[in-house]
């Protein structure tokens, strides 16, 4: 480290493709040089379903990113997501050779390897293996075991994996565009790097990224990632529900959701309506406000409850001193903070990317958290030789 480096975070989201060009400063800070964005086509629930159309959108976003930042983009940090992605925690252990008691780098590498080679389903590939803690002779909370004396070292890792074929669709897409993937990251983990503070990570926090087609989450406790996952439901489902329930086209449904919609029930007067304007701005259909909000409320509540159920499979919810942080485009929905507080029974904050400079106000929006988080991830991992992803990639493309 020490030398400035330019990296690009690329999120191929369900509603937009976004390329954030950032400069990693020697002092550890990040400066955003430019952001390119294009509305997504061919992406459903966070996964590419139409490579050709999606490729065009990526090209557009990259071109704009290059324009804005005056940087030629060759490599990217890619966000991957989808409901097929799963995670678990795994412990590996390694016993030092008889003739040694002082832990060296190579021992640490060995134990990390052991923890990483956890059994995952044959059709899956590893997405991220995130180090949690070391233990030396059973003593926990060890951050840097190198130099310590001990016989066995153990390492806990949070292992994120997903269906290889699906993940490789996005790899292929980028390959077709002559873009190289420097590393790839599960998007909730990436977003967490943008929106969470170190102290939140230590006190325990649940980060939820509610996007267009997915809702991702990532739990930190004691400074380490404990749980992460993704549900294939997002803001587009709200829009779709409204379109079907109110019998209006998707475009109108999206508009009314953003302009008028709320998750809060019982806040409207009996019989209160909102008027849907037609293309010429003339008053059109009247929509019952409470009905509008009920449809939204039911979807968001259900999604949060599903996530809560997932989270309850392990008991970290009791360790979230830092409460919950919401980000992603749908976190802008009115009333979502209170609804989330209601479902989880803990304080909730709405957050966008923090500690980055150079972001113009237009990009101070929670929907950029993931892409900015990819840049922050790059910053955090620069210097460590190639992540797990790197190696996997080589295997795939050689």
């Amino acid at each position, binding site marked *: 480290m020490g030398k400035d480096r330019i990296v690009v975070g690329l999120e191929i989201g369900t509603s937009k493709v976004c390329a954030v060009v950032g400069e990693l400063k020697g002092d550890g800070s990040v400066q955003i040089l430019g952001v390119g964005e294009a509305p997504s086509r061919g992406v*459903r629930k966070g996964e590419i379903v139409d490579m050709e159309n999606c490729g065009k959108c990526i090209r557009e976003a990259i071109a704009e990113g290059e324009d804005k930042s005056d940087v030629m983009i060759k490599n990217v940090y890619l966000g991957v997501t989808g409901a097929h992605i799963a995670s678990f925690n795994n412990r590996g252990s390694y016993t030092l050779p008889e003739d040694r008691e002082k832990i060296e780098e190579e021992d640490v590498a060995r134990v990390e390897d052991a923890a990483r080679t956890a059994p995952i389903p044959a059709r899956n590939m590893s997405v991220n293996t995130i180090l949690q803690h070391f233990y030396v002779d059973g003593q926990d909370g060890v951050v840097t075991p190198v130099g310590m004396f001990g016989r066995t070292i153990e390492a806990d890792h949070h292992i994120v994996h997903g269906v290889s074929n699906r993940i490789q669709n996005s790899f292929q897409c980028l390959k077709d565009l002559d873009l190289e993937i420097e590393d790839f990251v599960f998007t909730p983990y990436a977003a967490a790097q943008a929106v969470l503070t170190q102290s939140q990570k230590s006190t325990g926090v649940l980060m939820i990224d509610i996007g267009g087609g997915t809702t991702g989450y990532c739990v930190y406790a004691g400074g380490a990632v404990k749980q992460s996952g993704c549900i294939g439901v997002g803001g587009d489902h709200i829009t779709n529900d409204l379109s*079907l329930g109110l019998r209006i086209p998707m475009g109108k449904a999206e508009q009314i959701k953003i302009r008028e919609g709320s998750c809060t029930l019982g806040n409207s007067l009996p019989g209160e309506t909102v008027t849907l304007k037609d293309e010429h701005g003339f008053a059109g259909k009247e929509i019952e406000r409470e009905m509008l909000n009920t449809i939204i409320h*039911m979807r968001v509540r259900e999604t949060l409850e599903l996530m809560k159920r997932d989270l309850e499979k392990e008991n970290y919810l009791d360790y979230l001193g830092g409460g919950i942080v919401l980000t992603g485009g749908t976190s802008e929905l009115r009333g979502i903070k209170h609804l989330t507080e209601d479902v989880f029974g803990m304080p909730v904050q709405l957050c966008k990317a923090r500690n980055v400079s150079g972001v113009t106000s237009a990009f101070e929006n929670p929907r950029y958290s993931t892409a900015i988080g990819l840049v922050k991830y790059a910053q955090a991992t620069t210097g460590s030789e190639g992540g797990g992803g790197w190696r996997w990639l080589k295997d795939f493309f050689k």
Partner: protein
Amino acid sequence: MIELPRSNHQPAPAIKFVGLGGAGANVLDRLILDGLDPDSAIAMNTDVQALNGSVTRMKIHLGQNTTRGLGTGGDPDLGHAAAEEAAEEISAALAGGDMVFVCAGLGGGTGGGAAPLIAHLARKAGAFTVVFATLPFAFEGRRRTSQAAEALAQIETQADLVVCFENDRMGEALASAGGIQQAFIAADQTLSQGIRAVAAIVQRPGLLALGLDDLSALLKKRNTRCLFGYGESDGPNRAHEALDRALRSPLMDRGRMLAGAQDVLIHITGGPDLTLNEATILMEEFNRHVSDHTRIHFGFATDPHLARRICVAILSAEEAPAPVAKKLPQAARHVETPAPAAEPTAKPQAELFSAPLEQEPSGQAGAPDEDDPGDSYYNSPPPSTAPPMPEHKAVPKYAPQPATAKKEERAEQMPLEPASRGRFEKSEPTIVDGEDLDVPTFLRKNTRVK
């Protein structure tokens, strides 16, 4: 003009209508808005919020301690326990009814879990008990389907009659054409028409009386699925049209469903100008849809309210081959069944419906007028149940046009109607616990008792 003497004025039996759970209360609300006397209706639910939203005056909150007002989350055991907790209150409310009609969606925790117990309590109170049950749509998930089958089997051991409707079949035709929303509306509409028809049959015997024994002949068998059709017309060719529309109801499959039926009930109501000739033509036409062996139970009544309109209700039932079958083969075979054990004692009662199916003018219960508070309430559906269904307000109380025509008209207005999953139609579904999360939450929760 047929000039027949009015049948001897036997007082109609008093019916208490119970709407159980979200789906049941929904149908009950609809019946009230269609003119059912609200004092004869009782809503029962575990979900306090939903209960408060119902237009019924009498409400029983099930499971104050068991579920604390929150609904069952689809768990029938909770639904049962909640009803048990309120058993005394339920029995007190049901006392004094000659008949109790219980309406419940069996896929929900409250509907499926509590219905057998309610039926039990109703019979214990001495009422002839009819349960109108709906089986959930297949898309609501396998868990609900099997819960509903279990509930149905239990109800059959408790109730005097079970009228069981399959949502899948009622909504099938429309689910593909008009989207899931339409499917739910069609199902709701068919169910409420069916309840009205049955109530009219037992309450208003009419000129040619149909009675409980006719109904029992159709429905007394175990594990049957109700076939019901309803149509109206006041056009120049109204007899033919009304029948045709009844036969085109979702459950009739253009009359094909009747081909193998052993017993079919048909009830014709018309205004004062209904001629015998018309009725004869109608029956001749109807006869072509049933086999020679079919026993036809024919009822006929007039109602000056109807003016030029003719209404036809057709009711039959067929056996379900397996406990939970989605598609049924054509024929249904019925064995002669004994008349119902408990014939209700007749007792004078205010008219329940000022509905087309009824015979007399008696002004006691007119159609609620335009500024009926119930109506405006319905326009703003309460949160979480009575899910948003814009059509409900679009359906006029006593539609001058026939219901079926209305439906077609709507379908024409919305040719690009998004299907059930809308934008997610072509994408891989997100299935969690057998539920398709791409289907709007409010639709999936519709029949769920929450």
